[in-house]
């Protein structure tokens, strides 16, 4: 009997210890997943905290209203870069928003036609292509043909980077608008364009604005395509066909310079940029989740 029982006992024992190992593996791996989530938050907090800590000291009213000073001359600000960023991003919006919104209506109405598929494929491609490639593209289109760097070429590069973001968000938001609204408008005899402008667009408006804000937040922080399009400019300029300073490019120039006071200015400029971008991002995402709840709940 003893000899017959012991293999059973042994199996029971094995099963129990196997169960225990499985439990331990389970606990350990799940804890590691939680730890991973913690790890992801560390760089964000570290970056934000450090930028605020280093940047806040150099901030003053002068920093926003003065032009940059040469190396070694104290004071000075980034007025030219703030205005420059506003101009370049403004150009990007002026090109990108009308095209993206109109194209989004096409994709919404006819997603499975040849052109619809091509548009969706193109937005996927555009959103995946590195931003520096868009810089080269804008360079070949504007700078090579005109012979000089310009605010316009920078705005053009940013417009292409912004387009897939605005187009995609607009399309998604239009899809969330209840079909009954559209059918109702069409049934009352409204033309397609009236339905689009007076019914669909207002219903999706806050989502569309979210997309635009996310797009702006993304391109306002782009330094790579600015290197050889907008190029940077130490002086104040609002001319569209001249080189112009932008915030991210200014940070880059200050950061890789060997001068201590320029490096300090890099942190202060970074604080301005990060406040701008994060502010836009947080507002946009807040509006988006509110809008989605509103439309889904209806």
């Amino acid at each position, binding site marked *: 009997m003893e000899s017959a029982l012991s293999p059973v006992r042994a199996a029971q024992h094995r099963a129990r210890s196997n169960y225990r190992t499985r439990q331990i593996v389970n606990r350990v791996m799940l804890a590691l997943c939680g730890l991973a*989530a913690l790890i992801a*938050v560390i760089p964000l907090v570290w970056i934000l905290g450090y930028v605020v800590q280093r940047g806040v000291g150099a901030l003053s009213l002068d920093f926003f209203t003065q032009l940059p000073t040469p190396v070694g001359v104290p004071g000075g600000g980034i007025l030219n870069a703030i205005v420059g960023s506003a101009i370049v991003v403004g150009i990007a919006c002026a090109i990108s928003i009308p095209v993206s919104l109109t*194209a989004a209506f096409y994709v919404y109405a006819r997603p499975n036609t040849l052109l619809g598929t*091509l548009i969706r494929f193109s937005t996927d491609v555009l959103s995946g292509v590195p931003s*520096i490639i868009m810089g080269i593209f804008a360079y070949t289109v504007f700078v090579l043909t005109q012979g000089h760097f310009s605010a316009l070429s920078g705005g053009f590069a940013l417009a292409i980077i912004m387009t897939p973001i605005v187009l995609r968000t607009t399309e998604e938001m239009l899809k969330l608008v209840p079909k009954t609204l559209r059918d109702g408008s069409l049934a009352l005899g409204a033309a397609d*364009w009236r339905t689009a402008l007076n019914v669909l667009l207002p219903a999706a408006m806050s989502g569309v604005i979210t997309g635009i804000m996310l797009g702006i937040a993304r391109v306002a*922080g782009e330094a*790579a395509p600015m290197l*050889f399009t907008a190029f940077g400019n130490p002086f104040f300029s609002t001319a569209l066909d001249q080189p112009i300073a932008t915030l991210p490019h200014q940070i880059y120039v200050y950061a890789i310079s060997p001068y201590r006071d320029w490096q300090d200015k890099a942190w202060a400029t970074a604080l301005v940029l990060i406040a701008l971008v994060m502010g836009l991002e947080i507002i946009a995402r807040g509006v988006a989740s509110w809008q989605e709840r509103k439309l889904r709940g209806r």
Partner: protein
Amino acid sequence: MSVIAEIKRQKRNSPWSELVRRIEHGDVIFRTLTVVAGLLVVLVTAATGFELWQNSALARAKFGLDFLTGTNWDPVIEDFGALPFLYGTIQTSIFALLIAVPIGLGIAIFLSELAPAWLRQPLGFLVELLAAVPSVIFGLWGLYVFVPSVVKPFAQFLNDNLGFLPIFQGPVFGPSRLAATLILSIMVLPTLVAISRDVFLAIPNAQREGALGLGATQWEMITQNLIPYGLSGILGAIILALGRAMGETIAVTMVIGNNLDLSASLLHPGYTMASIIANEFTEATTDLYREALIEIGLVLFALTLLVNIIARLLVWRVARRIPTEARA
């Protein structure tokens, strides 16, 4: 039939009045506008590739396919080869993914399966906020904070303990491919997490209940059911993150050390395709020099295009498949 009625009928049916009527209705204009805008988007995409191709003609003619295998990059004698940059791009992005994928999947699992409901939204939001930090600020932080305080000691540690491996051979530098790799692994996390979390969330609950009902632990349910079920979507997320890592420019340029180097060691300074373009494009004084840089851009464009198409196919497949199976 009266003459007047006949004239009216003809007038109504003439092509011209038909056109006027349609234009007054407005939809012709609206539809034309949407088609034009759509075509613009498609054209710009095609034009990007075309311009890169067109503007690298000189370099392509001179170096041919040897451009991809040439190891020399000397603007003075105008001898250009892209191998060091190709190598740097691929090495840093692959190693970045080796670090980021386990962490990213861990976060995605935590967000979709484990976290209490009140934590999911805020934590997901924080991870997405990481994507909003501009690249140049990653670079600034990397150059002055992360590299001296984390990367350099870590590199020293790796060299001391694992220095016999070719990838950890010294001497130890601060700015290095390791620095770029670590920064990239942070920067691609949001992409990885956002997509793979959505993949996990799209998996029907029956999969979970089935596994748990058969006595699987939660971890076994995740590894044996959920991950195989969502595999193509997760692969898509990984490949999409690979595309991000390959194209990342400014942050990498600031921490990689910018040095032509073909050694296996991660601890040496290196160069990537994006960072050579960022560094030297405005200094390119001759046509051939500039076109060689544009050709590097062309190669980078082709690589990211390929990677994105593969990723989209994978993500689309899982997105198309899950709803039908969820209903069944």
